[in-house]
């Protein structure tokens, strides 16, 4: 994996995410566009009233996967800077669970990169959400990340 860009900010945190600060941090005089995504806690899920959420992560791997997303959007969209911050622990209704900000010279790159980043995060970053309702709690339905192909069973064992 290429070295992280020094101006990028890739974190998981148990504190409130500083959305405005992150959006400011990706801003440069060379760029004409900043796209942000603010993922926030909804007050209902599948018709049930949500009380609050809890997020947990495989933190070391989650950070590695978020850094991989940053590297991909630098390489594929030519963006200048990116911030991806995901919150863990208990979150109340309306709070930000994930915030992404990217800067680029033009709007198409910024918007496309931001969309790619959140879509890929939801599929590949090992973070889990538990939804708490008045009458119980459930782990949210998630997506099974893609894994490398299985070794064919016909291959002889090495020992």
């Amino acid at each position, binding site marked *: 994996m290429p070295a992280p860009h020094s101006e990028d900010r890739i974190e998981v945190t148990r504190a409130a995410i500083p959305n405005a600060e992150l959006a400011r941090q990706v801003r440069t005089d060379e760029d004409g566009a900043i796209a942000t995504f603010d*993922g926030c806690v909804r007050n209902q899920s599948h018709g049930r009233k949500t009380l609050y959420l809890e*997020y*947990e*992560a*495989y933190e*070391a*791997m*989650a950070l*590695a996967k978020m850094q991989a997303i940053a590297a991909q959007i630098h390489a594929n969209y030519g963006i200048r800077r990116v911030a991806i911050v*995901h919150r863990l622990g208990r979150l109340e209704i309306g709070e930000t*669970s*994930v915030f992404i900000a990217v800067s680029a010279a033009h709007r198409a790159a910024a918007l496309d990169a931001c969309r790619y980043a*959140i879509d890929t*995060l*939801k*599929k*590949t*970053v*090992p*973070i*889990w*959400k*538990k939804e708490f309702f008045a009458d119980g709690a459930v*782990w*949210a*339905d*998630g*997506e*099974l*990340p*893609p*894994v*490398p*192909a*299985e*070794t064919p*069973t016909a291959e002889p064992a*090495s*020992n």
Partner: protein
Amino acid sequence: MTVKVLYFGRLKELSGTSEEIVEVPDGALIEELFARCSTARPELGKFRASLVAARNREFAAWSTPLIAGDEVGFLPPVSGG
């Protein structure tokens, strides 16, 4: 040899632990490690089709051979964002 096993989300609740050290034969595959972990916990085995494994923080096929000291995570479908 021993490897470190990590459980997350509902798997952590089912297993009653977030991590453990497990003894497996040299060269054991992730599939075999999971079978060993499930022996004492039949509930865990039922999730085989709806989880993925990671070896040393990278997603890994079930047929991946392990070496001593590896860190293997068993991960339910991810739901961040």
